[in-house]
């Protein structure tokens, strides 16, 4: 597909005096794509969303939506759907008037408005609530109404600002699936802001991991999870062990890394790896495999065990280095104080250079 980008950010910067919330961010989003901006609070993800919406004004750069430059036009002319964390349904208007609100300002015939509202309510699976007030609806229902209100105007892009974080845990997962289904049905380009990595991984076509106003990595959920580009991405997504060390030998595609406490770790060697380089080895907690102590390989002792139902999380002491391990429970749970063997496959070790970037 060579279609023009649905949303195109070029060198967008936003500074509040000295504080730079977003630094020179460029990002291109395809039509119909579900892109998540993921990062800790204060990383600039919400600021980017609000820049696209027109609620804040970038101090530099350009924003195009549907092939039209929008960063210099007022909000109400941008044709953008916005869903807020706390729904922001107009409390004094009925559900019908809430959803019809945006249609009033577009050239939609009266008869059409009613039909469109009905269809939007069917789409969010809440038919027949037109006459109710927002206060008569539950949180989850209100968020569906907010979604209906945003998509009924057929916006060029749908912006979701942590829309699920005000819901309780069970509802949140249900809405996650539902939201994704609705987004697919409508085929609407969507930008989703969250600090919840599970939401990001479950819903996105692509994830934009942000930190301190900068994009750390853009990729599919699998890419950012399995092949983090930087120390930040590796530590933000999932549980990882970050082990500093030095390369002591490279041979036949395998590198030996001497860790701080004298352990050797074998890693698949990236092409650019130099002997004697200072590196940080990254190993996902799920890839630290524990076995009976007689199995060979490095030995360790369980420091603590957290039983999680289907799996268990361990902290293991490996001769002075504390490793995190998460394993599905097949036969037994390791108890505190037990000796174990530790196996880490070379393919499961990623190496970062001194600057914290992944070696390739």
């Amino acid at each position, binding site marked *: 597909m060579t279609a023009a980008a649905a949303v195109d950010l070029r060198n967008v910067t936003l500074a509040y005096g000295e504080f730079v919330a977003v630094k020179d961010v460029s990002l291109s989003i395809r039509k119909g794509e579900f892109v998540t901006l993921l990062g800790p609070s204060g990383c600039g993800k919400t600021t980017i969303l609000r820049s696209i919406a027109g609620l804040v004004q970038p101090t530099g750069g350009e924003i195009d939506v549907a092939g039209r430059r929008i960063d210099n036009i007022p909000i*109400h*002319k941008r044709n953008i759907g916005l869903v807020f964390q706390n729904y*922001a349904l*107009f409390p004094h208007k009925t559900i019908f008037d809430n959803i019809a609100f945006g249609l009033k*300002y577009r050239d939609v015939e009266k008869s059409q408005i009613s039909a469109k509202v009905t269809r939007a309510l069917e789409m969010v699976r809440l038919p027949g609530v037109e006459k109710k007030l927002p206060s008569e609806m539950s949180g989850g229902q209100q968020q569906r109404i907010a979604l209906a*209100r*945003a998509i009924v105007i057929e916006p060029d892009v749908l912006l979701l600002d942590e829309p699920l974080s005000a819901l309780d845990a069970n509802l949140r997962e249900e809405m996650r699936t539902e939201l994704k289904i609705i987004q697919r049905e409508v085929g609407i380009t969507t930008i989703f802001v969250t600090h919840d990595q599970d939401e990001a991984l479950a819903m996105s076509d692509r994830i934009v991991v942000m930190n301190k106003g900068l994009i750390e990595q853009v990729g599919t959920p699998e890419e950012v999870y399995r092949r983090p580009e930087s120390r930040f991405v590796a530590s933000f997504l999932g549980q990882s062990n970050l082990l500093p060390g030095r390369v002591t030998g490279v041979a036949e595609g395998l590198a030996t890394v001497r860790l701080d406490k004298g352990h050797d770790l074998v890693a698949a060697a990236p092409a650019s790896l130099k002997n004697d380089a200072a590196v940080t080895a990254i190993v996902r907690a799920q890839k630290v495999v524990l076995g009976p102590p007689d199995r060979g390989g490095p030995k360790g002792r369980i420091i603590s065990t957290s039983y999680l139902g289907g799996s268990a999380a361990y902290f293991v002491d490996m001769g002075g280095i504390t490793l995190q391990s998460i394993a599905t429970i097949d036969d037994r749970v390791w108890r505190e104080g037990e000796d174990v063997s530790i196996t880490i496959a070379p393919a499961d070790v990623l190496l970062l250079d001194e600057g914290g970037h992944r070696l390739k």
Partner: protein
Amino acid sequence: MSLDTSTSGFGWRAVQVFTVLVYIFMFAPIVVVIVLSFNASQFGGFPMTGFSLHWYAKLMQNESVLRAFQTSLWVAVVTSVVCSVLGILAALALVRYEFPGKEWVNTILIAPALVPETVLGVGLLLLIRFAHQPRTLWLLVLGHIMLALPYVVLVVQARLIGVKRVYEEAARSLGANRFQTFREITLPLIMPAIVASVLLVFTISFDNITASMFWRPSGVETMPTEILSMLKISISPEINALGTLMIVVTVGLPLLGGGLARYLARSAR
């Protein structure tokens, strides 16, 4: 053991008696005025000599009272309208926008509510004298606006802080411009505060005596100053009738307004 130990016993009885006494203290003067306004006696005091609407009839023929009533009404209505428009705009600016000197503007707007009225009365009078301007009815209106504006700003501001900005942001993202957003979202949401503050302003202006004494042009009386000057001559039962009418206006209006606000809230659905 009885369940309602908390509503029996000596302590509770004492509280009940005391409460009733406080209410009597608060309302007895008002009741006296109302009751005596229907007294047939020549003198504006007890004992009652019979029921009569005579003093009301006399009041209706008293041209200076009618003129004072008209003046007060006119001043109060103009003050209410101007104060609510200015007050809403000021509250919007203070809550929704950032501008240099915001704290100062806020303080200066609220200040007339804190300064003693006598001081304000003398101050404005001296200022007018200094500027060589005549004392006109507009001066009186201007003074009342100054007195009442802080209350509108405070009441509307408090409400506006409670109206989350996301409602306005949502409306604008849906295609409403700033004015449409104000009319469709902000205004209806702050309407109870506006109704409340308009009534408050009306009452403040209608009841004001201290400052009005300084500001009124010579020969012009408002209701309160008229009553005061009538009292200087004698305690005529007519004053009781007038007082009763003023109570009806100042109590009835808020009740009416409250009812209206409830009606508006219901029909807005």
